[in-house]
């Protein structure tokens, strides 16, 4: 039995170590001939569902760049180190990437996890860019004048659905459930409510939920006890519990439309809801995996499939791809990899991306991203693209 245990442990260790070897997508070119882009994205832990697809997008972008002559005539190397969903580790690996000569840093897609990487990039005088951090805290004000996020802020994300519900659908009353586990979900609800009330809508009740709680029978009881039922329900949460919340509401006879933000853009949510419950759900997100939304998507998908052996499975691949391409374009415009010049190019130009056209405000006004959101409706558990939307008015951060 001892032998069996030893063998089993060995197999387990090998299973753990083997896939770990493939994380560096390096090239053998000597430094000086290559431009290194460092990523401190989190490949493991709670942040991995967002960051791991972004890393794949970034890897694909680097391949495409190198096939087309690289940046400024030099080959590009993507050096990926795992931030492990730990802010301290993210900062440390970013520091190491800077020491290894990274010309720019791609930071995790969240203010709490990505901020440390951007701070290291800032103190090294290079550009830091997060593919998908949507908190308005992800700004030059908080992180420094060389730091950017590619995502629309939650101000935009909340406003788009508020305007859709009130203006397009004529829904006047809402029941809001906010997941209070992270800043993202809390600030998204805040801006949604700000815009919805400004339009004239009424928030019947602001309820909370905590990720991992695993039960919504109390929220359900409160909704059912209301004298007047809300026109729709706004849920600011994310997977896996988001599926649990929507399913439980639907299973228990609460059939109002459900509205939310980019965290809904998750294939596991669509599958978990299934055709039975995957209807009357609306959200805004960063892009859509179709030619209709993004001309040129088919080529992107084909290149992705050639590299990774499967179709793109999540929209989160696109911001990773876009992040590398934005940095590349900005370096080409600036004619150098020097941080201040690249940041200036990013501030002064419009970037045509898979995740929509993007302009940043200058550093003094926070590098606020001006970006359209993709509105999506779930029909029979299939996401349907409704169009790109720029809100009429965006709440102040």
């Amino acid at each position, binding site marked *: 039995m001892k032998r069996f*245990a030893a063998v089993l442990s060995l197999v387990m260790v090998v299973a753990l170590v083997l896939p770990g070897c493939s994380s560096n997508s390096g090239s053998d070119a000597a430094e000086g001939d290559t431009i290194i882009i460092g990523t401190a994205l989190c*490949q493991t832990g709670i942040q991995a569902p967002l960051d791991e697809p972004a890393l794949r997008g970034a890897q694909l972008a680097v391949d495409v760049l190198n096939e087309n002559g690289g940046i400024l005539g030099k080959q590009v190397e993507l050096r990926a180190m795992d931030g492990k969903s730990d802010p301290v580790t993210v900062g440390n690996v970013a520091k190491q990437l800077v020491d290894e000569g990274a010309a720019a840093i791609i930071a995790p897609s969240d203010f709490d996890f990505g901020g440390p990487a951007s701070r290291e990039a800032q103190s090294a005088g290079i550009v830091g860019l997060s593919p998908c951090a949507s908190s308005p805290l992800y700004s030059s004000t908080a992180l420094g004048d060389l730091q950017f996020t590619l995502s629309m802020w939650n101000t935009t994300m909340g406003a788009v659905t508020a305007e859709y519900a009130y203006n397009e659908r004529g829904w006047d009353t809402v029941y809001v459930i906010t997941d209070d586990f992270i800043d993202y979900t809390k600030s998204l609800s805040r801006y949604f409510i700000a815009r919805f009330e400004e339009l004239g809508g009424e928030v019947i009740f602001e309820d909370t939920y905590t990720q991992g709680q695993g039960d919504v029978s109390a929220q359900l009881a409160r909704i059912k006890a209301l004298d007047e039922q809300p026109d729709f329900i706004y849920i600011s949460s994310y997977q896996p519990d988001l599926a649990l919340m929507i399913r439980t509401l639907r299973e228990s006879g609460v059939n109002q439309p459900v509205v939310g933000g980019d965290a809904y853009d*998750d*294939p596991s949510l669509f*599958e978990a809801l299934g055709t*039975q419950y995957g209807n009357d759900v609306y959200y805004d997100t960063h892009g859509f995996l179709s030619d209709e939304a993004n001309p040129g998507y088919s080529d992107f998908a084909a290149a992705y499939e050639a590299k990774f052996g499967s179709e793109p499975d999540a929209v989160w691949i696109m911001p990773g791809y876009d992040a590398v391409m934005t940095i590349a374009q900005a370096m080409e415009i600036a004619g150098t990899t020097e941080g201040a010049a690249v940041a200036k190019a990013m501030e002064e130009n419009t970037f045509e991306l898979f995740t929509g056209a993007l302009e940043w405000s200058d550093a003094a006004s926070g590098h606020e991203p001006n970006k359209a959101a993709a509105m999506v409706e779930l029909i029979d558990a299939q996401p349907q693209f409704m169009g790109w939307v720029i809100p009429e008015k965006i709440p102040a951060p």
Partner: protein
Amino acid sequence: MINLEFVINTLSLGSLYALLAVGLVLVYGILKLVNFAYGEYLMVAGYAIYLSAIVGAPWWATLIIAVAASMLVSFLTEIAAFRPVRTKSMDALLVTSFAVSIFLQNVVLLAVSPRARAVPLPDFFSKTVVIGGAVLPLRNLLIIATTAVVLALLSFLMKKTVLGMAMRAAADKFTTTRLMGVPANFVISAAFLISGFLAGVAGIFWVGRSGSVDPLTGAAPLLIAFIATVMGGMNSPIGAVVGGFVYGLLFNILSITLPASMISYRDAFMFAIVVLFLLFRPEGIIRRGYTEERVG
């Protein structure tokens, strides 16, 4: 707000928590080990359903495979990880259980995906039923019934069979039990198998509610089981069952009675109650022979 629907939902929540807590306590009773890898056995059950459905197994087979997988992983982790350090310090066992937990999470993260995966469950699980005006999913009634059956079987096993008596004796005075000729490895393996069985059954219902599973699925049920056992009593399965129901009830009562401005502090209230328990009644609601002895 406290109507039939709320009562049934709370009962079903309590049933699920009771199942979770009993599985944790069975191992604690014998090894005095709070098995922090316990939540991962639920996660394994979720992935077993996901994988077996991919290869086309019918729904009843996916459920059997889920429970079997959970039992197998529980059994194997005991042999591969806990047994070698069992004679060492308490701390070694505890740290090992953290290691097993992180290991299992990373295995599925690397082998499947860090993103959540949808778990297909039979349609009748989420069928909406109406009872006396209460609208709820059939699953909530199934949890209550399943828990009742499982706990009855467990009670029979513990009280009427030789194995059960050996396990109870081992939980009380392990050294004496071994001197009577009961093999330690056998009793411990049995405890882990039963613990894995309970985790598997609870896991089906746990992932059944969201219809998805991800590498970190096990964290929440572990915490719930842990708190429930602290409240109910660490030293008997009955304490765990009581703790599970009390936890579910307290949680839901707090959720609907707290005013809107206080709702976000619900967890703080919950943990404050746990702290009070630790301060004033550390042995939990159900007091029983408080033994410190563990197998060495």
